[in-house]
């Protein structure tokens, strides 16, 4: 399968803790993207990391990419209740096509 596979499928942590989600894939990629989906909503783009990059930051988000292991991780620091959502990785192999995983469902408990 070309799709990214997220791990864990579900994660529940206390507010203020860090949340780490992982994504593994099987093919070569142009870039890897992370998206958030709040319940009943469309996906929102968070971060794009290119195949020649190893780490990117955006606010409380940190994404790493290890192309030798074909894996990426998304770290959310100092989590907040509003971070409760599903998080998807999507791999891009070109031709404007993204292949999404099934997502990690993150719950932040107050």
């Amino acid at each position, binding site marked *: 399968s070309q799709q990214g596979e997220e791990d864990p499928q579900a994660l529940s942590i206390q507010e203020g803790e860090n949340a780490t989600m992982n994504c593994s894939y099987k093919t070569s990629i*142009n*870039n890897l*993207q992370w*998206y958030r*989906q709040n319940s*009943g*909503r*469309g*996906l*929102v*783009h968070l971060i*794009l990391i*290119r195949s020649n990059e190893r780490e990117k930051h955006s606010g409380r988000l940190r994404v790493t990419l290890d192309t030798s292991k074909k894996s990426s991780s998304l770290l959310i620091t100092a989590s907040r209740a509003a971070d409760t959502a*599903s998080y*998807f990785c999507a791999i*891009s*192999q*070109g*031709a*404007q*096509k*993204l*292949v*999404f995983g*099934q*997502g990690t*469902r993150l719950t932040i408990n107050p």
Partner: protein
Amino acid sequence: DTAVSQTPKYLVTQMGNDKSIKCEQNLGHDTMYWYKQDSKKFLKIMFSYNNKELIINETVPNRFSPKSPDKAHLNLHINSLELGDSAVYFCASSRGGGLGDNEQFFGPGTRLTVL
């Protein structure tokens, strides 16, 4: 101010009917997409259009026919609806680029229920 909009938000219909979902983007993007998200949250691309031309068609039954009257609109028509078509359908758009290196902007989704 809505970037990518879809109508309707909810669609409940009987098996065998024909229905359409409309999508519009005001971002000036060249590429638009339709995705299907099933009950397990798996999101799968169905079609992609670039400047009104079909560039991706992912083994979708030919009961599904996308139509792009202009690059700001990509509508999805579904004939002879089946129970398995029940899902949430998302429209998205992105700038052109050819390498898939652009973020995609998603609409709010259309929840289709076939009875």
